[in-house]
């Protein structure tokens, strides 16, 4: 079975989209953690824990897209056997959403505490 290249490069575009999203995640996560150490004391512990959690999440997800693995829920690698076998599910998107939402909530809570106190 010869493999015809996909003229739309869907898998490649999706893989690159994952990479730049992860990069954005790393940058914003680090920025929020750095802000936590500058900001008031009560937010530091929560935000730092969240930052570490998101960094962990990031490294796990990047491992999943590395070569030689049977990629199921991250960006497909070059060794993806066949186009039809791109099997993906919502696990990584859900984790990513939760991490982003928690980071947003942390910054929101920080702003709220300024307004209250």
């Amino acid at each position, binding site marked *: 079975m010869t493999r015809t290249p996909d003229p739309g490069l869907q898998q490649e575009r999706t893989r690159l989209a994952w990479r730049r*999203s992860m990069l954005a995640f790393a940058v*914003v996560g680090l920025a*929020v953690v750095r*802000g936590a150490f500058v900001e008031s004391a009560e937010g530091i512990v929560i935000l730092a824990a969240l930052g570490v959690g998101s960094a962990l999440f990031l490294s796990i997800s990047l491992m999943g897209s590395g070569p030689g693995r049977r990629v199921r829920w991250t960006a497909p690698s070059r060794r993806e056997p066949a186009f039809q076998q791109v099997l993906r599910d919502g696990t990584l998107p859900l984790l990513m*959403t939760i991490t982003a*939402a928690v980071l947003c909530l942390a910054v*929101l809570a920080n702003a709220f505490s300024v307004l209250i106190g």
Partner: protein
Amino acid sequence: MATTRPLTWCCPVSSSVSSVSSSKRRPLWVYDHGDEPDPRFSLANERTFLAWIRTALALLAGAAAVHAFDLDVSDTVAAWSSGLLSASGLLCALQAWFGWMRTERALREGQALPSNGVGAVLAAVVASAAIILLIIGSR
């Protein structure tokens, strides 16, 4: 293969997809319904999800930047704009996930794609954050 694919130009359609149990894939709210769509549509849906996530991160970065930079505004103004920006970031993150789920299920069931629910709210919230920061904050 029971499903009809609109385009099968890539490879001969094998039984590889149907041989994998769909019950292993989550969320079940999506994968318990319908048939496997053209993979390109799922990939496009995934990129849309990622675009929303990046929008959420950009708004979050803006919210953090209001605190990080020493702006010449009062603490109340900074807190309001930062709070509104991070709230809209939260909204974008939720739209990313629920939009992905609804679209993926619609693709599997061959239904019309869901509309984007948060666009107007998002525009209003971001605009108010900008107004607070620029107009009220500069007084």
